[in-house]
């Protein structure tokens, strides 16, 4: 069997060879291995220089000041630092937070943790388009609200929230706004000079950098203060202690540099691949694209193949690496909340696949995926009693199912 074709760029990306090269130069004796915090010798100075260059590369991608970049171990840590850090530092002002039900677990679980500590959290429900509107946020803000955390791009369906609009609402109400931008940074423009965003989480491994490194953007004007979650040597202006991992940070800087340089051409190429994939299923019956394609990142597409269950579909596609919107894979029988929020019925939510394409996807890969998915869907529909009933003209909603 050939190696499976990778269609899960939204889960993680391979490291770009240019990034790996830069990283490898910061590891061994002859390389830039020093501790960036060593002030007394050349090894330290050179490492510090490399780290500061990387910090600038990240800042350039986001159009912000390098002094607003705090290195972390990834978007999960950034989300934790932002949410707990703000909630704890400003608890004198209030203990109410606002987030949405379509957030990543790193945000949702952090909020749950704070609830156990006596904080109150409002979880906004997305509209049928999968989006959170600025008006919803405005309606939820209270006197004691300190932070709003609403993501930029949703990881399951790829829709883009109006973070500019939400930011305006938050700034007007003097509430801090945190954005999880793990799926958007490096893919679509993010301009922190114009956006009223106070904190933003990024991960290197979603944009062809290494795993284990990310940043939290923390705005300087108006100033945002945080309660540190990691204590120690006072690195990163006291917000995140721990020896800076030069090779990781250099890797993240380089992947941001490349992302900025190639964003326009890459977005165009990725969009063309995604559209090629989508059109490959155009003539099939009962196939639906989830989420508004007009407010969408180029690389992600979520498609439901009605009357076929997602996990079994993935099982019949051993040569394609992708993920299912059906939560059967995560051991609970509830289909994805995000998909349900789009107003789709349960069968459709259970029948969805997330394809995500990226820098190293080829047209040939896409064609291979189309052919195999079509074959698998046909085979499983032959096995499906629901497909039989659909073909016989039975309305599935008219049947009283025994839920279990």
């Amino acid at each position: 069997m050939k190696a499976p074709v990778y269609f899960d760029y939204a889960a993680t990306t391979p490291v770009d060879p240019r990034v790996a090269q830069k990283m490898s130069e910061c590891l061994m004796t002859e390389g830039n291995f020093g501790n960036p915090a060593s002030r007394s010798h050349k090894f330290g100075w050179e490492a510090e220089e490399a780290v500061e260059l990387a910090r600038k590369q990240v800042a350039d991608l986001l159009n912000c000041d390098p002094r607003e970049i705090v290195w972390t171990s990834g978007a999960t840590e950034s989300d934790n630092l932002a949410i707990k850090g703000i909630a704890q530092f400003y608890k004198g002002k209030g203990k109410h937070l606002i987030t949405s039900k379509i957030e990543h677990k790193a945000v949702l679980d952090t909020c749950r943790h704070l609830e156990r500590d006596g904080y109150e959290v409002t979880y906004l429900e997305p509209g049928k388009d999968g989006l959170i509107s600025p008006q919803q946020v405005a309606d939820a803000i209270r006197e004691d609200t300190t932070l709003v955390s609403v993501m930029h791009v949703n990881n399951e369906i790829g829709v883009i929230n109006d973070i500019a609009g939400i930011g305006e609402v938050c700034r007007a109400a003097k509430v801090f706004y945190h954005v999880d931008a793990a799926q958007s940074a490096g893919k679509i423009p993010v301009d922190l000079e114009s956006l009223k965003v106070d904190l933003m989480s990024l991960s290197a491994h979603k944009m062809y950098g290494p795993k284990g490194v990310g940043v939290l953007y923390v705005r300087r004007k108006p100033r945002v203060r945080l309660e540190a979650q990691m204590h120690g040597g006072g690195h990163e202006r006291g917000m995140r202690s721990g020896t800076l991992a030069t090779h990781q940070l250099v890797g993240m800087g380089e992947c941001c540099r490349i992302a900025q340089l190639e964003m326009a051409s890459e977005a165009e190429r990725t969009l063309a691949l995604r559209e090629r994939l989508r059109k490959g299923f155009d003539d099939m019956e009962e196939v639906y694209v989830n989420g508004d394609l007009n407010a969408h990142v180029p690389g992600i597409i979520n498609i439901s193949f009605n009357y076929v269950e997602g996990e079994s579909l993935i099982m019949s596609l051993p040569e394609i690496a992708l993920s299912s919107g059906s939560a059967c894979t995560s051991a609970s029988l509830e289909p994805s909340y995000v998909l349900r929020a789009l107003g789709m019925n349960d069968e459709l939510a259970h029948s969805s696949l997330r394809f995500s394409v990226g820098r190293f996807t080829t047209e040939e890969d896409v064609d291979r995926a189309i052919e195999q998915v079509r074959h698998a869907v046909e085979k499983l529909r032959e096995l499906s009693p629901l497909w039989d009933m659909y073909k016989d003209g039975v309305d599935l909603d008219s049947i009283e199912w025994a839920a279990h």
Partner: protein
Amino acid sequence: MAYSDQVMDHYQNPRNVGKFDDQDDQIGTGMVGAPACGDVMRLQIKVNEEGIIEDAKFKTYGCGSAIASSSLLTEWVKGRTLDDAAQIKNTEIAEELALPPVKIHCSVLAEDAIKAAVEDYRKKLAAQA
């Protein structure tokens, strides 16, 4: 998640896929599960005059373990009496397919399916009498 060889075998080569005419007096149909839960099984048995299941067919919407559970069940019920078939326990199915704990509900569904099919056939028989 890795699937057992037994699940893969039934999944890749499902036995007795198909549909009988559910109006036929010889046929008992059991349909269990719900699309909302991500699995629906339709199991049908064909019963002869001696009350022996001489053929069985299934179609299943669901994960690989659900498909394998129902495929295995169609093999097991053939040649059994109705009483005998209704005795099949989900634990036997789970054991044969080496199902992991999160997939036990698939075998439970299969047990429900055969019980429902037997009951459906018996109702038809009673209605004729």
